[in-house]
């Protein structure tokens, strides 16, 4: 009979379960105190894991659409990406689209709560077709090529109190706002929220001295699994003789974030597991006391036919019951308390209801049961090894 079958057999044999239940109830205060230890441990492990996971989800959520793009930038010492280099990129396989980007920065001033505020905005020259692949409109439409129209990011619109049809003045040139973009969060390609996007003609008019070529090229790949080999191929083609461009795969950001937040979660859970360790020692203590107090009973059981295995099973079942009850309570409290804290701290309790957060709750639950069983193992072993005659004589 394997362990699972043994447990099922013990539970279905209601006398074993009844004995375990009554023995736990016998010293109810002591049982409750041991259970509180496990509950705290489960809550600590689960909530620390959930906290780390929520931090990760919260940060990765703020980086939008970063997985499927390559950012090609001039190598150190190079001024820009040339048209020839873009031609070379076009020969690489697995490319969905190539979006050249030129950009400049501007300081703008606006009034907020009655005070003058300065802010930095990026002015972009991205072809309309390319821009449509990178951003989404909240209101209005995209600019027409050759026009003096522009679309602005959500932060720019909010700070300057812009709406479609209004005008924005950059370097004494007025541009008509025809569209406002949806908020996108931080990006490694372009900063949409604080950007102003206009036609190439208008951009050249604004910055007549800008370099020939582009500041960066955003390459959208077809198959994300092949993104690294696509980056290698671009580098191989362009950097044959000398390093002219650097290629950065945005998915490496998510991989690094996963690693960093994975380590944070593990560290936090490590702190949480200390409380579970303390709970384990408490269970060990409670069960050892119980073993000592029940020495005579163990002797009686052995005299009437209990084997070492029977005694071991009885004590382990008690530890299992204690672990199950306390871990369930711990998991429920984690979910309830976690929901309230998430709603208050992150203003978003949805992180708690993700599969990855539930995994940490389950992990805490199983760690709680395992701790209880490990804590109960030595007392159970000790009880099972008692000599029946010595146990019967114990007073």
């Amino acid at each position: 009979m394997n362990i699972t079958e043994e447990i099922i057999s013990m539970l279905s044999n209601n006398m074993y379960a009844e004995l375990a239940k009554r023995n736990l109830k016998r010293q109810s205060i002591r049982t409750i105190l041991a259970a509180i230890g496990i509950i705290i441990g489960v809550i600590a492990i689960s909530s620390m894991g959930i906290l780390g996971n929520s931090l990760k989800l919260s940060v990765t959520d703020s980086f939008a659409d970063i997985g499927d793009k390559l950012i090609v930038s001039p190598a150190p010492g190079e001024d820009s990406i040339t048209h020839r280099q873009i031609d070379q990129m076009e020969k690489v396989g697995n490319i969905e689209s190539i979006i050249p980007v030129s950009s400049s920065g501007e300081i703008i001033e606006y009034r907020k709560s009655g005070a003058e505020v300065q802010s930095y905005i990026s002015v972009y020259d991205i072809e309309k077709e390319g821009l449509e692949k990178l951003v989404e409109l909240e209101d209005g439409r995209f600019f027409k090529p050759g026009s003096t129209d522009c679309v602005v990011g959500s932060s720019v619109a909010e700070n300057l109190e812009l709406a479609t049809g209004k005008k924005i003045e950059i370097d004494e040139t007025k541009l008509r706002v025809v569209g406002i973009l949806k908020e996108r969060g931080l990006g490694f390609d372009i900063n949409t929220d604080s950007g102003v996007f206009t036609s190439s003609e208008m951009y050249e008019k604004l910055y007549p001295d800008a370099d020939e070529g582009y500041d960066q090229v955003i390459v959208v790949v077809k198959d994300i699994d092949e993104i690294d080999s696509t980056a290698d191929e671009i580098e191989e083609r362009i950097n044959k003789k000398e390093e002219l461009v650097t290629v950065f795969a945005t998915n490496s950001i998510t991989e690094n974030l996963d690693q960093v937040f994975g380590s944070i979660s593990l560290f936090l859970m490590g702190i949480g597991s200390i409380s579970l360790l303390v709970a384990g020692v408490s269970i060990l203590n409670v069960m050892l006391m119980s073993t000592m107090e029940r020495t005579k009973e163990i002797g009686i059981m052995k005299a009437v036919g209990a084997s070492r295995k029977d005694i071991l099973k009885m004590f382990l079942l008690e530890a299992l019951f204690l672990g199950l009850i306390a871990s369930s309570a711990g998991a429920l409290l984690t979910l309830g308390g976690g929901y309230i804290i998430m709603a208050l701290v992150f203003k978003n309790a949805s992180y708690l209801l993700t599969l990855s957060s539930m995994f940490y709750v389950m992990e805490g639950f199983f760690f709680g049961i395992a701790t209880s069983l490990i804590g109960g193992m030595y007392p159970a072993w000790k009880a099972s090894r008692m000599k029946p005659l010595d146990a019967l004589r114990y007073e």
Partner: protein
Amino acid sequence: MNGAYMPESQRSTHPIVQLQDVSRIYTLGKNRIYALKGVSIAIKEGDFVTIMGSSGSGKSTLLNMIGCLDLPTSGRVKVNNVDLSKLDDDGLTAIRRNNIGFIFQQFNLIPTLTAIENVEIPMIFNGESPRKRRKKALMMLKKADLPLEYARHKPNEMSGGQQQRVAIARALANRPPILLADEPTGNLDTKTGHNIMKLLEELNSSGTTVIVVTHDPELENYSHTTIRIQDGEIIG
């Protein structure tokens, strides 16, 4: 009680318990204490034996040897023709579970369990189903003459006599061929003690070998055979 009296002529001559030159030595510091010295006895199947002796004579040690609760320092103990020296812990447990029922002076019931649950305990270790063992436990309590309204009472809710009846029912649970009783009337008044001994007598008459350890000469009257022990040696 259903057991019919078994006349001596019908009793088996087959020894159910055999001790051959059994010694039990306890070591206390540098001192060696002989609890049993070269004891050799044979107890026939279906016999009612009283082991008599004063306190410290070795009678309980002898009973513990027969009940597989203790092993001899030297010599051989056979129960139901099985040499105990050749058994490991599981083997000794199996002998206790299937061949021996214990009755103790202190009753030794599990305080958290009711009367019927106490009787069920040996059957749990024998792997019997909950339904079957509950039925059998009720039967055993009836056989031990415990009024069934006490079946759901815990030990502290019963008198000494009632507790000893529960203990007897528990000893009978797995229908063992041997009943071992260590001062079974020691904690009971005379009348209750007599009733318990009558019960053991009746169980013996239905075929169970009963071995009673006592220092009370009154109990000798219930048995067929008396073994006297003094300073760890059989004297008669």
